[in-house]
């Protein structure tokens, strides 16, 4: 009888441990150079910080499997996949000025195939522009501009689904020749225009480099966190970040316009 009752002991002990395992806990990354500030001295109206996520390199067997899988798919399977890595950004904009001003946050970045460097794209577009036309280079994602009163702070989240859309857009324009204006303006679930060349079995790469820009009127500060849920547990801790996976993605350049 006593033995009969004791059989419940092991499952009872294991229950709380189950709660601690396999729940895909997030890891947070702060900007390496601290909060961003705009409008100070010659800082201008934009300030950018880049966060590189330290994922581990694939092991030899994993590389072989990626090669085999890429051959079967007909295109390269990414090591870091969007369905394995969920990214979001939490931010707070603080107005340090004595005047109210508008502010918004832009997100750009790179996956292992393509680097979307908006500053380089803008410089190239300005060099090619004729008649001093104003050049507008869209970010991969942008928040709605908000007015911030002097001394006040505004909190916001760029959610995982926002970042997932940005990752799809980056892959579409980088690997599948999508028209940036079409995919960056439209939400793919609402209007998939521009995604015609993306194969239905595409494996969307996750971003490993997140570029966060504060665009503001006046002197403002942006504190932000990049929050990453990595279901495959490939993120390294700070101590081992030196040996992180470091792909060299191609800088995105839009295709040259067709000659008339």
């Amino acid at each position, binding site marked *: 009888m006593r033995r009969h009752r004791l059989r419940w002991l092991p499952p*009872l*002990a294991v229950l709380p441990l189950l709660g601690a395992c396999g729940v895909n*806990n997030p890891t947070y990354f702060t900007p390496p150079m601290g909060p961003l500030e705009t409008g100070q001295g010659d800082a201008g109206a934009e300030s950018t910080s880049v966060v590189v996520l330290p994922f581990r390199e694939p092991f030899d067997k994993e590389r072989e499997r990626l090669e085999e899988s890429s051959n079967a798919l007909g295109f390269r399977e990414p090591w870091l996949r969007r369905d394995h890595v969920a990214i979001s950004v939490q931010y*707070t904009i603080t107005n340090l000025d004595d005047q109210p001003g508008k502010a918004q946050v832009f997100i750009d970045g790179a996956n292992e195939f393509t680097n979307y460097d908006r500053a380089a794209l803008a410089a190239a577009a300005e060099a090619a522009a004729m008649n001093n036309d104003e050049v507008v280079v869209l970010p991969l994602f942008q928040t709605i501009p908000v007015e911030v009163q002097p001394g006040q702070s505004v*909190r916001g989240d760029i959610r995982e689904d926002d970042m997932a859309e940005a990752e799809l857009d980056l892959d579409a324009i980088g690997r599948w020749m999508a028209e940036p204006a079409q995919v960056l303006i439209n939400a793919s679930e609402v209007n998939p225009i521009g995604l015609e060349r993306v194969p239905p079995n595409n494996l969307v790469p996750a971003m490993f480099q997140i570029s966060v820009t504060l665009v503001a009127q006046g002197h403002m500060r942006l504190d932000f966190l990049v*929050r990453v849920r990595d279901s495959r547990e490939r993120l390294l801790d700070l101590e081992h970040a030196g040996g992180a996976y470091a792909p060299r993605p191609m800088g995105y350049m839009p295709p040259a316009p067709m000659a008339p």
Partner: protein
Amino acid sequence: VRPLLRRTLTTLGFLLLMPAGEALAQITNEPVSPYPDPDKFARGIYGEAEVGTLLFVGDAGSSVGPGAVVGVRLGYDVFRWVALQVHVAGSTHTTTFRDMPQSGQILQFYQGSAELKLTMRFNRVAASAMGGAGLALISSNLLGTTGLTEPDVQNTLVYLGGLGADYHTMSRHFSFGLAATFAKYQRLRTTGAIAATAYVRYTF
């Protein structure tokens, strides 16, 4: 004496003696005591399930909110008054950091400890004191981005002590109780945390 009167007296005599015979049968056993004998309470291996609240005090008190805590203890009564137990518990918290993006995040604390428990029993009620040490895990590195821990710290030694009160049911196996525990986390820059829990205990 007339025959009718004799028969009547004999019948009355039998009637008077009948209950006397049954009464004799009733007093052959001692009545069962309605109160349990504490010496017969089960002793040995036991399990406890607890639920309550965990509240941080000190620097983390304003930023790591109070949270629900659940846990289990498995122990062994070495003597009536001393027991050794292992304790695992988990709690979940929401953060509040003023004007910081770390606000509104959810994080969990998990801890496992080995404990010594001393108990003094007064019939069905017992008072206890416990102390122990173990390891606590933090579910994310969030606190490392705020200065409450060093960057990337997600585990820490924990020392804890507390008091409890236990009430035994009529069953020799079951009891209920309340416990209050103070925990000091070595690598967390705060005074500590207080857990107030209610538990049910089953002794095998």
